[in-house]
């Protein structure tokens, strides 16, 4: 489907709903076309090659009382489009009024310039040309004595979205991204103990992908988790790796500063705006404007320009530290922060992060570890905190003992419990080195003292 066809279809929809129902105050239309390639390995051998494409659109209509109807399809013929528009109106008529719905965005004069979000090498990438990345993964696993298997993939995608609304907004953007992942299994040939390690890299440009590094990190991770021991209960410092920082600091804060969660009072940070919620080492921003970053966008999924927002500064949760779409912004009487997010054309805009970053510190992670006499190195837990209470208790899936400044035995059946506000206040060191995982930028973080429940009691 060509650009001109999409513009004429959007115009057709906007005119149709205007004619069908005079009560409609706002309409927005979201078109998306996308394609992807994916090549997968299992048992350290290429298993599947895949390509796919999709085209679809959705329409949202809102009347003067704030009642909202929504409908979508991937059939783009005029007959279906007409039907989908009429269904959206029918849905609107049965929806409840919502006086909190204030408005959809108007058109914007200026959009920010962000570089490196579209790579034409990715748009036109043929699956045959991505085989080298996969072969790099396979080689690392094959050449290692302890590695017995690997699953993983290389995927790349291109999407173009178009947003139109009844306020005259008419924008489009092109995005590319690619991903490489590796999950390596290692086995001790004598004891038969096995363990796995996982690593991934997400980029907007193909030339940034480093498959060898990803596989090596997964291998290192797997080996660090072999010969696991159960430990006794203890109360010691915990060092979060970048992955640990994402699951215990960045993800929970991202969920808790989502204005929708906040307005429904389901966030443990309700009532804490303008207050100190952590130590001076806690500095967080949501920045959609970083060149080439996985979470960057020129505008959000309602067409509002993205920007850089400070969320927490030196432990202070800023009064302006919430992420909004146009609905929550209208309800709070502020401007949208450009954080409207749709998973694709099938969803109504919710709220999501762009690039959610914790500010790095002064010390290297090795120096922080050296300072710990007895402690826990926490890399990965499958649990997530309760966002409405901030309580966290979970199993350490990948973690090690730290003893006399060195990373030692990995842990079995070891659990950790803490309230997040307590955790934020107990941050006493943040590393200079950091990792970027998709939309998160995370350093190593030390928590001064945490309750650890071991399986050896």
């Amino acid at each position, binding site marked *: 489907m060509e650009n001109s066809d999409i513009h004429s279809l959007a115009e057709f929809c906007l005119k149709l709903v205007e004619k069908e129902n005079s009560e409609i105050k706002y309409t927005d239309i979201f078109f998306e076309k996308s394609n992807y390639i994916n090549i997968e390995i299992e048992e350290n051998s290429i298993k599947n090659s895949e390509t796919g494409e999709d085209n679809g659109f959705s329409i949202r209509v809102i009347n003067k009382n704030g009642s909202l109807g929504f409908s979508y*399809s991937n*059939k783009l013929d005029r007959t279906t489009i007409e039907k989908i528009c009429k269904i959206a109106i029918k849905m609107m008529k049965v929806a409840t009024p919502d006086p909190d719905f204030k408005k959809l965005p108007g058109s914007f004069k200026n959009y920010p310039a962000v570089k490196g979000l579209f790579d034409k090498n990715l748009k036109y990438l043929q699956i045959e040309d991505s085989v080298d990345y996969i072969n790099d993964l396979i080689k690392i696993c094959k050449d290692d004595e302890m590695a017995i298997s690997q699953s993983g993939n290389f995927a790349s995608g291109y999407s173009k979205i178009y947003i139109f609304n009844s306020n005259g907004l008419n924008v489009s953007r092109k995005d590319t991204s690619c991903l490489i992942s590796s999950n390596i299994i290692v086995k001790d040939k004598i004891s038969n103990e096995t363990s796995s390690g996982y690593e991934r890299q997400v980029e907007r440009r193909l030339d940034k992908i480093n498959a060898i590094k990803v596989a090596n990190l997964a291998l290192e991770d797997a080996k660090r988790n072999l010969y696991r021991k159960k430990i006794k209960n203890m109360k010691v410092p915990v060092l979060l790796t970048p992955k640990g920082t994402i699951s215990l600091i960045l993800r929970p804060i991202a969920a808790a500063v989502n204005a929708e969660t906040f307005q429904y009072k389901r966030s443990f940070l309700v009532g804490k705006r303008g207050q100190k919620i952590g130590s001076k080492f806690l500095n967080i921003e949501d920045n959609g404007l970083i060149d080439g970053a996985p979470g960057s966008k020129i505008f959000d999924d309602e067409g509002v320009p993205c920007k850089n927002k400070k969320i927490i500064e030196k432990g202070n949760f800023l009064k302006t530290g919430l992420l909004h779409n146009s609905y929550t912004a209208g309800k709070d009487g502020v401007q949208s922060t450009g954080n409207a997010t749709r998973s694709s054309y099938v969803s109504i805009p919710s709220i999501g992060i762009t690039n959610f970053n914790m500010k790095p510190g002064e010390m290297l992670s090795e120096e922080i570890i050296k300072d710990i006499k007895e402690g826990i190195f926490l890399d990965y837990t499958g649990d997530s905190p309760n966002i409405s209470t901030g309580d966290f208790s979970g199993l350490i899936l990948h973690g090690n003992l730290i003893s006399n400044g060195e990373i030692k035995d990995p842990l079995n059946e070891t659990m950790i*419990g803490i309230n997040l506000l307590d955790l934020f206040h107990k941050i006493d060191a943040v590393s200079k080195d950091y990792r970027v995982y998709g939309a998160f930028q995370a350093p190593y973080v030390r928590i001064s003292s945490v309750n650890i*429940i071991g399986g050896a009691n």
Partner: protein
Amino acid sequence: MEISDELKEIDENLINQLNRIANDKAEFWDIRAKVNNGTTLDFINQKSKEISSFEINSCGIRAFKNGGWGFSVLKDLKRESIKIGLQKAIKLARLSESLTKIKFKIAQNRPLIDEYKSSRKKNLEEIDIHDKINLVKNHEKIAANYSTYVKNTHTIYMDGRSQNLYLNSFGSNIIQDLSFLRLFCIVFTNKNGATQSSVNSVAGIGGYEIAETEKAINLSKKTAKEAVELLDAISPIGGKLTVIADSKLTGTIIHEAFGHACEADLVLNNESVLEGMIGEKVASEDVSIIDNPSMGQGQQFNLPYELFGCYYIDDEGIPSQKTKIIENGILKNYLHNLETSSRMKVPPNGHGRASASSERPQVRMGFTYLEPKDWNLEDIIEDTKEGILCEDFQYGYTDPTTGNFQFKCRISFKIKDGEKKEIMRDVSLSGMILEALNKISAIGNQKTFNYSVGMCGKGGQHVRVCDGAPYIRIEDMTVGGLN
């Protein structure tokens, strides 16, 4: 059966053309075409947040040659697109084949030509949208008015109908017409600044009658009641304890901690602790675990509809069937799709499932359950000197490679000298699956047996599943909490 016009386009003539395209270039191919529509009603605090409706077509085409798979996902069901899609899939399969080191064949299967339609007493398409809206509004009202402690109510109603066409190079040509309904309630409560929540759902394969069962009618009240009760719950003390698990939690433990390790794709990839253990004792003798996603089991639970995790055929054209995973403590079978059964030289058992036509079938569970034995619930509690009774779960997961698992329970009660005592929240249980299956010290009887529904995630795909179990007691579990 009335077949949608879009699927009618895929006729004998086209199938002949597809066979000519594949000819000797692919050893196996299959096509899954799906026509899908549905409605979502999402209410928060008695206001509609999303009232929506959709129509989506999708199609996935696979081709296979000597260990290499190719997969092509289309955006429409036009004849020309399908022909080009198959050509692409064949090209991709040949690329995979040229690079793969693991060579194998897909074992020939008897072709199946049939049509299946799930029964629906009240057709979803014929129910007025106002009636569906009123149903949700009513649930919201019941939850909101339950107590002054209720701060947030959230109800989601989802229904859908899909017509799926499955074709393969063995000559299978199957239509499966299913209709679903799912109702969710989430309630948040607050007392003295402390927030609690509970969530419950009802889901099944059938028509609008699913929403009119007693269980569905009581959904919002039950959820509100639990969220209010949790306000007075205390945090648990961590340590090693005896745990009595209800059918919902036990079913989830069986599914997460054990079922996934029986999926033959994980076994082949060296990711399962159960690799090479067929015929070995993996649990105490009282333990028998089955997976049976066959249709027709709803009536066993007095339901006027089918269990949510069930199907007539899987997404590779294999009929659903009963598979014994563990019999009296001995591991009997893994769960298979076409590929794993071909490679392990056993018959397929109908567990090749994909979340959508645009995804590749993986090995997935259907309705996994632990068979009941002879304990009364009262006797299990009375027989327990000190422990925790855990009901329902918030989430759970397992590392299949190490067997380490973790479950977060929703509602728990302290057990002291054979009596149920104070309520506790957020109890987490952890252990090693093979150890835990050997530490089961009591299995409840048929009266304590029940099932639960959910969506199970694996490799980015979510499929509908059910699990079932009686109450059980496990000794020596690691329990974690905030204190």
